[in-house]
């Protein structure tokens, strides 16, 4: 594991509490560390600071010094150094801590300022919470509770602005709800690199929009919905599907590429409704791709595999083939670390060769890497493979043609897509542990339906060699079994000792046998993951180019 460097610390006083925070921290973040909430709309930890909402106004003071001698000026009443308070409130987002800084977040001046801003934000707001998708996760709702007046003094006509504007294929805008915080504009311009959003008109009539020829259609557009503090930007897909407070949140990972974006899966009663990014400052900050958000649709896809045959019977037919020998195993870069390790054990038990199918595309330099498998490095770490995979199973094809292989077991890979012809498939017995029907499952002798990443737990090792865990969000469908359980049963059926049938149990063996994972257990793995020592794989040339928090090793 690699430890980050310790930053310089500065001691500040927030509401009477002394707290040490890293140099360069602003007052909002310093307060957060002291468990003090400074409400805000426009501030976002990953975006440029603009200070326009004025909700985070606080009182700030600095220890007094004599201008001439620079000696501290003492307050005789308290015996402490006198504090020179700035006579007007300052913004917490734009104020960085300085040694000895004093901050008040609950004074009458602060409260008055927040109440004023809240009232102003609501006068032209439609107050249409019953029909607003943001209800339950709306910062206006939240802060109106703390700083609202409870009634309106506004008897004038409210401003009228466009509603239900289609900003792009996935985002719908209600301008009347917009508080003009500009988070979406800054995100799109500075993070996504697509300067498509802006304000037109002026003053209170300012209106968020995009140019008609340049829609908000980039692959990060839904992040604007995530960061919109109010109900202005909503997901066209999720709109009106479900009230958020009914949804269960499960910490998960995006399987779209080797970036390993941290996510939250939102579900209710076994149905997934949406996926949003989960903050990890070392991996994806607070962002994710739009394309990663729709992967859950595979869970309820029409071609989802289910079996009426009992698992034990399926395992028995598979074991029979495995025991006959001449086995090749095609593992997957989509399989978890645990599954890859279990598969390695099975391969050893049946004396099988192992290959992996690579899956590559064009990276976007942000959160989509060129390696579209989430866990190729897991296969390296567990020792399942020692060389980087290729996209075509040419060696295996040759072995089949040479009659060296009689049975192929694959962990969900479509072998035809990986270059095996129908004729080659017909020459061998195919056992597949898979989730969706395809040409390989159609040709297989044994099909054992298994689970998608949303239905099981496990770990992936991303492009940085960071091991990260995810948990099952929804139960698998009837007639599908957990991959690890299947692999354990298969290993037992061929007469070998299984390393464990669950994520929890397999980790005892993993930690004991895999040097890179020696001190880790699934339970104690931090939510933001752990960086593994990757020196053993330095010599390999990985396909990924630079992404948000990843720089490829320089090859000489």
């Amino acid at each position, binding site marked *: 594991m690699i430890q980050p460097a310790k930053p310089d610390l500065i001691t500040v006083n927030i509401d009477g509490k002394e707290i040490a925070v890293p140099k360069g921290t602003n007052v909002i973040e310093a307060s957060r560390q002291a468990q003090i909430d400074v409400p805000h709309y426009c501030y976002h930890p990953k975006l440029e600071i603009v200070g326009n909402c004025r909700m985070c106004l606080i009182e700030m003071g600095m220890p007094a010094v004599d201008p001439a001698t620079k000696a501290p000026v003492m307050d005789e009443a308290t015996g402490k150094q006198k504090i020179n308070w700035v006579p007007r409130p300052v913004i917490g987002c734009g104020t960085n801590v300085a040694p000895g800084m004093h901050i008040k977040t609950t004074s009458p001046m602060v409260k008055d300022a927040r109440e004023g801003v809240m009232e102003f934000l609501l006068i032209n707001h439609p107050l249409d919470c019953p029909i607003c998708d943001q209800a339950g996760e709306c910062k206006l709702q939240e802060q109106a509770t703390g700083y609202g007046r409870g009634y309106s003094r506004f008897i004038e006509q409210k401003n009228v602005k466009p509603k239900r504007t289609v900003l792009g294929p996935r985002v719908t805008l209600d301008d009347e709800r917009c508080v003009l915080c500009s988070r979406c504009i800054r995100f799109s311009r500075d993070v996504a690199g697509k*300067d498509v959003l802006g304000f037109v008109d*002026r003053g209170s009539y300012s209106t968020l929009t995009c140019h008609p020829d340049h829609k908000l259609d980039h692959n990060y557009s839904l992040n604007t919905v995530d960061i919109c503090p109010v109900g202005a930007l909503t997901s066209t897909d999720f709109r009106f599907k479900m009230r958020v407070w009914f949804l269960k949140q499960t910490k998960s990972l995006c399987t779209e590429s080797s970036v390993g974006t941290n996510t939250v899966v939102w579900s209710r009663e076994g149905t997934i409704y949406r996926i949003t990014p989960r903050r990890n400052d070392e991996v994806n900050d607070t962002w994710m791709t739009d394309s990663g958000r729709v992967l859950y649709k595979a869970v309820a896809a029409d071609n989802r595999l289910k079996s009426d045959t009992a698992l034990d019977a399926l395992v028995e037919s598979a074991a029979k083939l495995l025991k006959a020998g001449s086995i090749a195993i095609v593992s997957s870069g989509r399989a978890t670390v645990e599954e890859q390790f279990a598969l390695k054990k099975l391969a050893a038990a049946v004396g099988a060769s192992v290959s992996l199918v690579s899956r590559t595309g064009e990276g976007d330099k942000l959160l989509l890497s060129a390696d579209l498998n989430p866990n190729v490095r897991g296969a390296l770490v567990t020792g399942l493979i020692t060389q980087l995979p290729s996209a075509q199973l040419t060696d295996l094809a040759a072995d089949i043609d040479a009659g060296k292989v009689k049975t192929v077991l694959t962990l969900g890979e479509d072998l035809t897509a990986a270059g095996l012809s129908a004729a080659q498939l017909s020459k061998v017995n195919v056992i597949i542990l898979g989730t969706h029907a395809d040409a390989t499952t159609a040709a297989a002798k044994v099909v054992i339906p298994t689970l998608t990443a949303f239905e099981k737990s496990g770990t992936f090792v991303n492009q940085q060699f960071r091991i990260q865990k995810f948990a099952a969000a929804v139960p698998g469908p009837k007639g599908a079994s957990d991959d690890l359980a299947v692999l354990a049963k298969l290993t037992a059926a061929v007469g070998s000792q299984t390393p464990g049938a669950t994520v929890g149990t397999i980790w005892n063996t993993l930690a004991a046998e895999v040097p890179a994972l020696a001190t880790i257990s699934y339970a104690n793995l931090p939510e933001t993951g752990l960086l593994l020592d990757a020196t053993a794989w330095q010599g390999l040339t990985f396909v990924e180019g630079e992404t948000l928090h990843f720089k490829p090793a320089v090859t000489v």
Partner: protein
Amino acid sequence: MNLKPETFQRIDEVITHYPVKRSATLPLLHLIQEDAGFISDEAITWIAEKLELQPINVLEVVTFYPMFRRKPIGRRHIKVCRTLSCALVGGYKTCDTFKAEFGVGLGEVSACGEATVEFVECLASCGTAPVVMIDEVLHEKVDCEKAKQLAAQIRSEAAARK
């Protein structure tokens, strides 16, 4: 973009005034409006390309500054000052007089196509209130009588043109 050759020349020249091209946004908008009368959708896209910007960057600017128009106006642009010093000495009446003279509401083009009347904020000539700008010429102490004279002059200039 259909502009006079000298406008293109001036556009290329003015861009050289700035180390960052984006700074030429307002100058280009002025030049195009002077030439074409208003800022069309095409102009916005054209400026964005010329200055290596996104069209939204230009659209944001066009709509922020009230002097830029998205639609054609009358041949003569009558801007009456609305702000306090002018209002104190009859600016509203002056404005009403122009509206009546040309039979238009604010921002509209008169039936004859000759005039558009606008009520604008402070023209910074408060000592000679009420003031009116007709195209680029400032007229001072424009009471109702003088407004009528100016309107008559505009009409006679229009007649002379025909």
